[in-house]
């Protein structure tokens, strides 16, 4: 069974990019997601799946960002949640 043409990408979220001092990884996840939701014309309540892309180790003064953390800070409770592997 092929999924050809059955799914589509409907929104993209950007954040400031380059050298942006004083920001956590988590804050960039949240900003990008909120902007993607706005871009698609959805609300956060519509989001029922969350995948955090693979990532590098956290900074020594921080913690590993998990999709659970991202969901909680967004105020959503997705049916499906995952962290992509490297």
């Amino acid at each position: 069974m092929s999924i050809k043409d059955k799914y589509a990408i409907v929104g993209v979220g950007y954040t400031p990019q380059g050298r942006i001092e004083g920001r956590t990884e988590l804050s960039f996840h949240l900003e990008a997601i909120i902007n993607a939701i706005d871009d698609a014309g959805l609300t956060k309540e519509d989001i029922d799946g969350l995948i955090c892309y693979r990532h590098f180790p956290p900074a020594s003064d921080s913690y590993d960002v998990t999709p659970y953390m991202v969901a909680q800070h967004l105020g959503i409770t997705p049916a499906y949640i995952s962290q992509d592997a490297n």
Partner: protein
Amino acid sequence: MLESGFCKYVVISYGHNAVSSDSMTTMLMTLGQDEEAFGHFGATGSYALAAQRAMYEFNTGPETWKHIAVGQRKWANLNPLAMTYNRTMSYDDYMNARWLVEPFRLFDNCLVSDGGRAYIVTSAERARDLKHRPVIIAGLGQHNPADFPQSATFLAGPTGAQIAGEAALRMAGITRDDIDACQIYDCFTYTVEITLQDYGFFKPGEGTDWFQGGTIEPGGSMPVNTSGGQLSEAYFMGLTPITEGVMQLMGRCGERQLGPQTGTKAPENILCSDNGGILQCNTTIILRRA
């Protein structure tokens, strides 16, 4: 999970404070497990090993890679969001840059970026009622052929791009000739070469000729990494290439928009890639204009 009906709208996100934290130092000191003791640090060291082997096996090198670095920079110079928007690059700039890990000079390496990126996937049916013209996922392929370079039995390809690319084209029901542009995961210039080579755009070692004359640049016959990519826009893992493919097909790319204004074909199909580990896996996705 969309196919099973488990979810209706899935968001995929990435975020990193790579420039303004010490995260990348941790990566450098831990990626090679114990090999740091022997001077082998991070992803640059591993990709440099693979590239060195490719130079020996099919005669590639800086004369090929300079076209990738300079070509992508020309796209970044059309993208106000790109970290290098205001910095042009000549072939001399590329060649005169310092070594990071030989055979890679500074501009063979991707950028390190603070920031994030996200996108949303839903069914083609739901997509029709939303704000933008949707971008259809026409084909997908993935292949995982290799171990880490230190223990891999081959280093100079074929990478996962070969089989993943064939699978994605097969699913989409098109051929390579139907692809109008590519957004290739470009942690290093060489990654772009080996990936396009394994997709079959040119034969091993013929990249030098293929890239010459501005093939991947504005005005070229096969635009590649039209935001500037990870080499010249910003590094957000596989989300740099795929989101640019989406924005191009939605027609939202301003000065760098593919079509008459950049002397390129208005795109119907864009091939996007991601590559994980050290050339160990490849995911290929073919996006189509709705």
